[in-house]
């Protein structure tokens, strides 16, 4: 299912607990590091890096593949993808094989074949969105910076995703 509305993305974030960030870097200047670090320090998700070229990110062990991660922790709720669009079809196949519940393609990671494949297999699919930004949209982070969250509500405590 393509999760292309704010409410659908919010529901995904609310029901998810484990996140595997594929392509997370340990270089603090890379966007993937920024997102990984944000999600890790929010203490909202159990987060892991999937990257065969590194040992860990700030002490959090990295796994060489989604399959290796799943053997240790079971299926992740969300697979967050920082990879070239041309390289993500095999990744989707692996995510389906390990039983991941959703796949989140970061900014610019757009591959129609991979999207259709994940959708058909019943995964929740988010495309061309940043998991950090969308988390911050619903937990009040964007609003703290004067960014347009799009949220209009008169209910109390609606800001905790």
């Amino acid at each position, binding site marked *: 299912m393509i999760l292309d509305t704010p409410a659908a993305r*919010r529901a995904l974030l609310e029901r998810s607990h484990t996140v595997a960030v594929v392509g997370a870097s340990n270089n603090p*200047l890379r966007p993937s590091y920024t997102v990984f670090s944000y999600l890790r320090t929010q203490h909202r998700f159990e987060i892991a890096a999937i990257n065969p070229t590194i040992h860990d990110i700030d002490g959090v062990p990295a796994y060489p593949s989604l399959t290796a991660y799943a053997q240790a922790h079971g299926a992740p709720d969300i697979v967050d993808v920082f990879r070239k669009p041309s390289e993500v079809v095999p990744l989707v196949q692996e995510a389906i094989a390990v039983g991941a519940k959703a796949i989140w393609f970061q900014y610019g990671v757009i591959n129609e074949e991979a999207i259709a494949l994940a959708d058909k297999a019943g995964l929740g699919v988010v495309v061309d969105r940043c998991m950090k930004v969308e988390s911050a949209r619903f937990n009040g982070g*964007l609003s*703290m*910076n*004067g*960014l*347009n969250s799009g949220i*209009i509500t008169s209910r109390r405590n609606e800001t905790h995703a």
Partner: protein
Amino acid sequence: MQDRSFGFATRAIHAGTPPDPTTGSRTMPIYQTAAYVFGTTEQAAELFQLRSYGHIYSRISNPTVAAFEERMASLEGGLGAIAFSSGLAAQLCTVLSLAQVGDHIVSSQNIYGGTVTQFTVTLRRMGIETSFAPVYDYTALEAAIRPNTKLLFAETIGNPSGTLADLDALAKLAHKHNIPLVIDNTFASPYLCRPIEHGADLVVHSATKFISGHGTTMGGVMIDAGRFDYGNGKFPLLSEASPGYHNKVFTETFGEYAFLMRARAEVLRDVGAQMSPMDAWILLLGLETLPLRMEAHVHNAKAIAAYLHSRPEVEWVRPPEMGSIFTFGIRGGRDAGRRFIDSLELWSHLANVGDAKSLVIHPASTTHSQLNDDEMRKAGVAPEAVRLSVGLEDVADLTWDLGNALEASQRGVLAESAR
């Protein structure tokens, strides 16, 4: 949470201000604090490295100010906004976010005199040159664009001439040369015009005017559409390693948020022209009635323009094509203009616009007095022009006062001609 595109009036009241999560306060509290306690040293480090969202120090961000910023971003249809201590501060920081010593900007010449001065005096001293051309002369504007030009600037409604900018045409011109279009939308307010919908990349306001609505508060704001590609090679301030921020490359790290993140984290931080929480709160209150006020301002302005048109003492009227600020020329030139203003009872003679109170000024001797004759002509200001900012009083009372003052203005002329 429902998915819904809420209307303008709803957003003018609600955007940026859900109930306060700590107290349940339905009105945005005034967070009158300089600084914010960190949770842990790890959280503090994440904040300072711009990897997490949160408040550090009110020079950089504040919850009440952020609520105002988010509401303005929502009303203008932008990605986000940054509030400043005044409109000129918003404008200066917008330019400083894009240009540095050795750079150049191109501006409409049909703009506020204070902006002309900021560009020609202060920016020039900082090594940033400005070329001016009429807002409707695309050939001249394009000819002024150089390889080191960093932005194109114009006002939606020129102050005080009322000249409208064709925003779509200006956006096309700016984008052809890979530079952003910066629009001052003060006179229109987002209720009458949303420049981002017409291709503008950055919108600035003096919030002192219609956003406040009551002449109470100094403030400025800059809204970013979030769609200009600052990684196009012309903007090293954004696309090269930033020595002010751990050598971060803003365009790489923040994508569409790059401009806003850098403008706040570097420019606002270093310039220190932030808005105060109290002022943000007053401006939030002002915004709640923006749609109602703008409707009434426009209604009254049309009535006043028609009334002036019918008066023999009035040489010409330039009725507002948009908004409620316009000029007219009085018979008898500069002296008659002075007698007219000195004879008014209800209209306030002062240097501001966009108040609930009706305001009047003679630009040649006040707002535009720093300009020489040539600059004044270029800005479209005639020496006999009187600028009105039509308020929300009863039209009959406003015309009563104008009529009396118009009669008084001509007594000198008549006496002279009788002699």
